[in-house]
């Protein structure tokens, strides 16, 4: 029975992701390009001013920013589905579980980020920087960022009453978490007192992991382990928050 429920949930996630992700994306492929534009511009300017030595930071930042932007856009997708289309109501009054719905939508949004992530992977490979460890680190880091910011996006979507509120929130959040913290630049540039952000802000944690794995900075094994743990804890907290705040049924 339990296995059957899990199977159904997985199929449900796939159906929702296909409906909101793949099907419309095939019809408007431009959706996926805009996520990569800003990070590619950063890469260009960082290379221009920082030289080849700083490319590792720009690539790490690019991976993280593409993923964050796509994940945060979940807030618009979910709010649009609830406020404008009202299809959300059809899912609530159905056997679809809140988690199935949220994961399906989050996956659908992330599919739009795939071409951007692939672009940065191609650049990393072309620069002969890609190693199995780096690849694994990138995947792990991006999954944690995806989880955390999709949850944030979904929770925000449940709080707004007008879509126009979100037009400002998406760029604010993306800017705050992927430009200000040490995502495109090394943690060491921050004053000593502020370096703890690497363990608190999910984008900084993910970027630091990639900075280390790409060889842009060297770090003690202890820090490496701490960063992996911090990233895992951040995602777990995000999932716990989601489970308590899906606001599936409105009070």
């Amino acid at each position: 029975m339990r296995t059957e429920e899990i199977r159904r949930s997985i199929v449900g996630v796939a159906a929702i992701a296909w409906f909101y992700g793949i099907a419309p994306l095939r019809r408007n492929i431009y959706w996926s390009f805009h996520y990569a534009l800003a990070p590619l511009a950063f890469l260009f300017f960082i290379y221009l001013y920082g030289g080849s030595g700083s490319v590792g930071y720009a690539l790490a930042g690019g991976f993280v920013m593409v993923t964050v932007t796509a994940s945060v856009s979940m807030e618009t997708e979910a709010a649009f589905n609830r406020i404008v289309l009202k299809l959300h109501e059809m899912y609530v009054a159905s056997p679809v579980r809140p988690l199935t719905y949220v994961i399906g939508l989050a996956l659908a949004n992330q599919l739009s980020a795939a071409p951007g992530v692939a672009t940065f992977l191609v650049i990393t490979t072309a620069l002969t920087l890609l190693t199995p460890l780096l690849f694994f680190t990138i995947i792990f880091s991006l999954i944690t960022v995806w989880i955390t910011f999709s949850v944030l996006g979904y929770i925000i979507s449940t709080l707004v009453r007008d879509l126009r509120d979100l037009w400002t929130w998406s760029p604010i959040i993306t800017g705050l978490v992927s430009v200000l913290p040490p995502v495109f630049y090394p943690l060491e540039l921050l004053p000593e007192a502020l370096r703890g952000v690497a363990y608190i802000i999910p984008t900084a944690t993910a970027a630091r992991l990639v900075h280390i794995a790409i060889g842009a900075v060297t770090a003690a094994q202890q820090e490496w382990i701490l960063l992996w743990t911090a990233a895992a804890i951040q995602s777990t907290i995000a999932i716990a928050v989601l489970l308590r705040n899906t606001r599936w049924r409105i009070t």
Partner: protein
Amino acid sequence: MSLDGVAVAAEGLRKIYSGGVVALDGVSLEIRAGRIFSLLGRNGAGKTTFVKIASTQLMPSAGRIEVLGYDVITEADKIRRRIAVVPQEGRPALLNTPYEHVYHYLIARGMGLWEARRRTKQILDVLELGGYANTLCSQLSGGLRQRTLVATALATDAELLFLDEPTIGLDAITRIKIWDVIRTLTHEEGRTVILTTHYMEEAETLSDAVAIIDRGRIVARGGVDEVRSLLHSSARVEVIGGSLTLEELNRYGKVVRLGETVRVYVDDSHAREVVGLALERGARASVSRVTLEDVFVSLVGEGLES
């Protein structure tokens, strides 16, 4: 609350929104299973709030409600497996097709792939959407879009369907088509349909039972004939213009003023007399049978908004 043969049983249901707006004010209602039940009311009367609570989308503030024998608050999951809704003013996603809407929704609900495919094709054909199955919703007319949403809910295997103004914006022929499907679902498949509508004709033609809700309270309920008989009149005389006073008309039966039109509810024997008097006084007058709308107008006091 009795459960046998009852799809929905509400008792003293109240809903007060955060701004202090009382949407439901002690609603008690029993809706039989396997029937078509219509909830009628003006905008803001509480119809959608009732549907949202019964379909586990909204928490009540007080009172009890059981759906299919399960408590809406504590057993929502059990209810959700057996219901489906068409939301009020819902819209399909513009970059998806009608086929995708129905098929993916059925899969997400846990239906097998083959069964989902079969049901999707069937409902699209029945609602004459087959020819548009793979057309993007952005290219469909408003009516076809609404039909897509209706098809999505009707294709499910839900025992209880909540249709919140499902035929709004549809042409008469499509509306009749949807009525046929709803009748088949209830009379042949034994499903229950709870409908909210502004179209009195729809409620009258389709429903086995109706309730009229006004300002969060149920003001009438029962079978269509039963509710119609609440007026204690068989004919409606509509009078426009002329020099007749309300006092004069009051002698014949219940009088309701709707703008420039005055409706007088009378027995057949008095209808001719009222028409004659109206014509004498330079008014235009017409007679018709009493309908559900008359009961509604009489109870709620004003005409329906279109």
